[in-house]
């Protein structure tokens, strides 16, 4: 490969890979959207769970993996998303529209709450979000119309169970697709560069002019909207909320942490893999009762300490593969044929040989 000479490089955004991803992605989405015509509702209702798990994992990964905010209070938005379905359903909207409207409102709530949460940093931010989640739960259960501490069902719902499952499936799939596409384009945008620089070194990012607080606030709100949408899917699938302490449970945060850590924090692919691993484990081991959560906790600790890059990180380190191109690659332009043509290019201060940079420098998300 040619040497990297200043003036003779271009930044490759992996556009060709991006086009491939778009074509394959569109195909996969189309197939998944048709799946209810092929599979029984009992199968697709299982997939709904996988879809909202991936959505949750992706949202937590944006928070912790890219913006460096470990939140253990995302259950606040999951719960609000579920209860938002009731609120707008009672106002006369159908449950599916309610879910979408609620998520927008909850995004606004999260924007307000960010001004409280951002007073704290690091570990105290984590517990602060937990307190906010508790306060939100305690406020929600004070409303008798929302079932107080008992939970409640959706009043006005599609009567036919097959159609209900179908609509919920499409909604969950749509939310998942929107989450993944949104994250991919967010990370490829200018904001994405800022986020990846915050992930790598927050102080340095601030020093080169990244508005760190603004970037974090945007991610905080986006993650809350995604969690709210996932929460409303949970509510729609269970036709209500069984108990507020369940939908506002800190266990949701534990699942998110687990999925992201296992898959690989700070990558787009990791949370998807982590969610699939969690989903499969959940299918086979959930009859172990609460020991299952004990095992998850232990695995999370082991992965944090001994496999900090997660499954996807290890795979990528070994085989240099990416599914979603979010990185930049500096590539040397082909050398001009005439030897004296380089005189017109700005003269490099150091000879290319002594320049210590590798022939391709790249950032990978």
């Amino acid at each position, binding site marked *: 490969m040619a040497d990297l000479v200043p003036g003779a490089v271009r930044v490759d955004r992996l556009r060709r890979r991006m086009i491939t991803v778009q074509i394959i992605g569109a195909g996969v989405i189309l197939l998944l959207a048709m799946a209810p015509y092929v599979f029984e509702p009992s199968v697709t209702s299982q997939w709904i769970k996988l879809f909202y798990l991936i959505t949750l994992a992706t949202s937590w990964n944006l928070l*912790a993996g890219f913006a*460096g905010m*470990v939140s*253990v209070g995302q259950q606040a938005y999951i719960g609000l998303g579920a209860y938002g379905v009731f609120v707008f359903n009672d106002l006369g909207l159908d449950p599916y529209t309610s879910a979408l409207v609620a998520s927008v409102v909850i995004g606004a709530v999260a924007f307000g709450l960010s*001004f*409280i949460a951002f*007073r*704290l940093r*690091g*570990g*105290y931010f*984590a*517990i*602060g979000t*937990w*307190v*906010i989640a*508790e*306060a939100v739960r*305690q*406020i929600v259960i*004070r409303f008798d119309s929302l079932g107080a501490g008992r939970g409640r069902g959706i009043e006005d719902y599609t009567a036919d169970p097959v159609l209900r499952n179908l609509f919920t499936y499409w909604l969950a799939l749509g939310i998942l697709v929107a989450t993944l596409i949104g994250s991919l384009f967010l990370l490829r945008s200018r904001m994405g560069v800022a986020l990846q620089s915050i992930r790598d070194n927050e102080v340095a990012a601030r020093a080169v002019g990244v508005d760190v607080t603004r970037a974090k606030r945007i991610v905080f709100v986006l993650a809350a909207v995604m969690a709210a949408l996932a929460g409303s899917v949970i509510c729609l699938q269970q036709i209500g909320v069984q108990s507020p302490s369940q939908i506002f449970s*800190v*266990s949701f*945060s*534990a699942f998110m*942490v687990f999925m992201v*850590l296992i898959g690989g*924090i700070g990558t787009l692919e990791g949370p998807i893999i982590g969610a699939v691993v969690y989903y499969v484990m959940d299918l086979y081991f959930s009859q172990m*009762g*609460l*020991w299952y*959560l*004990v095992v*998850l*906790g*232990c695995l*999370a*600790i082991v992965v*944090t*300490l001994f496999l*900090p890059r997660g499954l996807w990180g290890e795979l990528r380190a070994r085989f240099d593969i990416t599914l979603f191109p979010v990185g930049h690659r500096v590539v040397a332009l082909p050398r001009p044929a005439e030897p004296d043509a380089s005189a017109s290019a700005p003269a490099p201060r150091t000879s290319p040989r002594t320049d210590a940079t590798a022939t391709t420098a790249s950032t990978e998300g």
Partner: protein
Amino acid sequence: MVIVNALLQGVLLGGLFAMAALGLSIAFGILRVVNLAHGEIMTIGAYLAAVGLSSLGVSVWVSLLAVVPLMGVVGYWVQRLLLQRALTLGELAPLLVTFGIAIIIPNALIELFTTNKQAISTGDLAVRSIKLADGLYVGVLPLLTMAVAIALIAGTQLLLARTRIGRHMRAAADDSETLRLLGVDHRKVYAAAMGLAFAIAALAGVFFGMRQGGVTPFDGQLMVLFAFEAVIIGGLGSLWGTLAGGIVLGVAQTLAGVVSPELPLLVGNLVFLAVLVLRPTGIVRSKVVV
């Protein structure tokens, strides 16, 4: 008189919150680790005392003599074996490890002991009280809790200011590299600090259990939030601040309890969030950074 009584009870409740917050404050001040499992360590302390009482018949006070040092040793080794490694991996890792512990402990406790309350009885101590005026009583146990909390804070302050290990801890908090150059193993210093934090947490957990008459697997979640709120309200880095923060939280909860028995937790949380918005550095200006 109801209000005065609630104020007094709130202040004494603050002693308990301060005791719970002290361990969190030490761990953060010296190791910069926010221990999300702090409440669960308190729960473990209370469970050990409860099991000692129910299966061995040992009184709570005697079991404290074993439980507190035992949890200190546990803290020492948790730091050396798990958290020390996590500290080298960046900011997120220690948080995630302690969150893992915070998920493991309550679920294991539910499987082992069910969700039933494990009784921690203190004889008549829990109900004994001193009459100050008509309608104004001071419980002996809350008074004792407050005294122990003050003694612990003063003791920790002395330990950090006057003793050799205390100096090492402060040095490790400032610059562990230089401490190493001077021939002190900073990992042992960190581990000792975490051991101290665990021991105090266990003691606070037993006092919490005595106040509640027992302990359930869910108490840890409540307690870690109380402890954290006391630390933040009081102001990060100030040990006496945690006492002030605990008292503010305690008074807020008992005053809310006068209005409605469902309100204390919510009002406590809202007071905390209000302090965070209005005075994020806490109510006590810290002079000594632990």
